[in-house]
């Protein structure tokens, strides 16, 4: 056991770094301890954790993780996102107190140096609620226990840890979704690596991260398929590994990454519900469509009307039981599998899972909206289009303010619950939906509404 472990107060190894400064391991555990002491005096049982800063998010998570409490994790760090979950919470732990007026709050504040640093792993039974876009129209609650998160992180370290060494973890995906939380925060904390608290949005941000040492880039196809367009990428020699998750990386993007940059992206297939399921990396060879299961994961196919759905079981699935994925698949005898498309109506947009049903319901709650439809518009860059039928009040607003005013108001309305990326870019306001004789709105008819302009 090293000296730092014996004297956590003096453990000045860096845990996290970013624009807001450097957080040592001692500093991290002091934050956790200060929050824990405060939480012990609070009767609240159901806590939402909403921290924009990844370092505080981590401290809040460790402090709240306790079998006596449930931690609610909204899809985005906004009050609207919390209310959209429909989850009842008693209180909010946040570094954005201004956004949560009317809630019982525990504010993330730097503790005094006199607070002791006490490293303590959460109890395996500590309960979390993640939220994802469900197909039914409302965000879907995905319950998890600390043991699932812990087993998932241990599997990642077993699968890749040995090859990664003492690298610094930089992410282009948010820390409040399961993928970012696991790869950007919990895995580095578990393995003793450092992580960058700020989200990397440009190639330049990755170059900045690389100045702290060799990097593990936690990213997604949306970012990786564009990054090679930048002229100044971080030197490939400074990159230990690139992870990609959220959706499959298109073949040409995977190939371009290797040829124009260097590291082959390790693609991880999984979902909030199932955790990590499989992985693959572009090696220039054939059989790229095949994924291999992550250590400890067992898969099988179950036939249904749409085809053979992939089911999965691991330490990370709920109570270690079989769970369905959202995908159709075929499977080889050696366990490798190929994905054949989504089995449900939730779409993937720039790696994000988006339920059009949910967004349609949200739009219909606006005072001006009678009904709405959403669709993906083809083009160099796919965009989301919204077709909205306005009610009397909405038509009056359209007559008074014009299309742009109504569009901007509805965009602002959606911004309360969705991240900017998912807000429809193009809008049409027909008097009625182009329904066919069966009363169903056809995608092709919706699409023609967007063909009037180049």
């Amino acid at each position, binding site marked *: 056991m090293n000296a730092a472990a014996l004297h956590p107060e003096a453990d000045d190894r860096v845990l996290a770094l970013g624009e807001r400064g450097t957080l040592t391991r001692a500093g991290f555990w002091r934050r956790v301890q200060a929050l824990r002491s405060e939480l012990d005096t609070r009767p609240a049982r159901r806590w939402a954790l909403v921290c924009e800063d990844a370092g505080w998010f981590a401290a809040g998570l460790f402090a709240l993780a306790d079998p006596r409490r449930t931690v609610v994790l909204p899809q985005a760090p906004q009050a609207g996102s919390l209310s959209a979950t429909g989850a009842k919470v008693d209180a909010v732990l946040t570094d954005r107190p201004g956004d949560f007026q009317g809630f019982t709050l525990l504010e993330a504040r730097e503790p005094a140096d006199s607070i002791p640093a006490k490293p303590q792993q959460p109890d395996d039974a500590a309960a979390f609620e993640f939220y994802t876009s469900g197909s039914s129209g409302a965000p879907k609650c995905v319950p998890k226990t600390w043991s699932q998160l812990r087993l998932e992180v241990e599997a990642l370290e077993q699968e890749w840890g040995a090859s990664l060494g003492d690298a610094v973890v930089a992410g282009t995906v948010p820390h409040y979704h399961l993928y970012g939380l696991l790869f950007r925060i919990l895995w580095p904390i578990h393995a003793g690596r450092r992580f960058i608290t700020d989200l990397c949005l440009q*190639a330049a941000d990755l170059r900045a991260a690389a100045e702290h040492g060799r990097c593990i880039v936690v990213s997604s196809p949306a970012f990786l398929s564009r990054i090679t367009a930048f002229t100044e990428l971080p030197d490939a020699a400074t990159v230990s590994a690139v992870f990609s998750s959220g959706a499959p990386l298109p073949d040409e993007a995977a190939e371009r990454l290797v040829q124009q940059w260097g590291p082959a992206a390790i693609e991880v297939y999984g979902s909030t519900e199932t955790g990590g399921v499989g992985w693959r990396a572009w090696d220039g060879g054939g059989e790229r469509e095949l994924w291999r299961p992550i250590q400890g994961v067992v898969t099988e196919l179950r036939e249904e009307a749409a085809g053979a759905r992939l089911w999965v079981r691991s330490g990370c699935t709920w109570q270690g039981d079989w769970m369905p994925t959202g995908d159709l698949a075929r499977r080889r005898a050696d366990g490798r599998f190929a994905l054949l498309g989504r089995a449900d109506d939730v779409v993937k947009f720039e790696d994000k899972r988006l339920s059009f049903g949910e967004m349609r319901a949200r739009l219909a709650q606006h005072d001006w909206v009678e009904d709405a439809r959403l669709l993906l518009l083809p083009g160099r860059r796919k965009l989301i289009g919204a077709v909205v039928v306005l009610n009397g009040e909405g038509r009056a607003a359209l007559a008074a303010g014009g299309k742009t005013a109504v569009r901007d108001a509805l965009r602002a309305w959606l911004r309360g619950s969705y991240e900017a990326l998912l807000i429809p870019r193009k809008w049409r306001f027909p008097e009625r939906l182009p329904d066919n004789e069966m009363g169903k709105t056809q995608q092709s008819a919706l699409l023609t509404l967007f063909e009037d302009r180049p």
Partner: protein
Amino acid sequence: MNTLTEDLKQLIIDSLDLEDVKPADIDPKAPLFGDGLGLDSIDALELGVAIQKKYHVKLDANSADTRQHFHSVENLAKFIESQKPV
């Protein structure tokens, strides 16, 4: 009228395929992301690439600076000006 500012507005509209937005609608001081024009993280990437292509500027390896440059059209213009060879 500052032509670089106007060029940047047009570049933003063209490269991001903004519909029903005219250069005059973009306030050079307003935030491009978040509550202003409402651009997203993919827009930031696309815009970064477009600006690099058109103006051959070098983005510093400093996230805080980059974020500052991309805050508004005015900041972008100042940044590009500062990168021009004297």
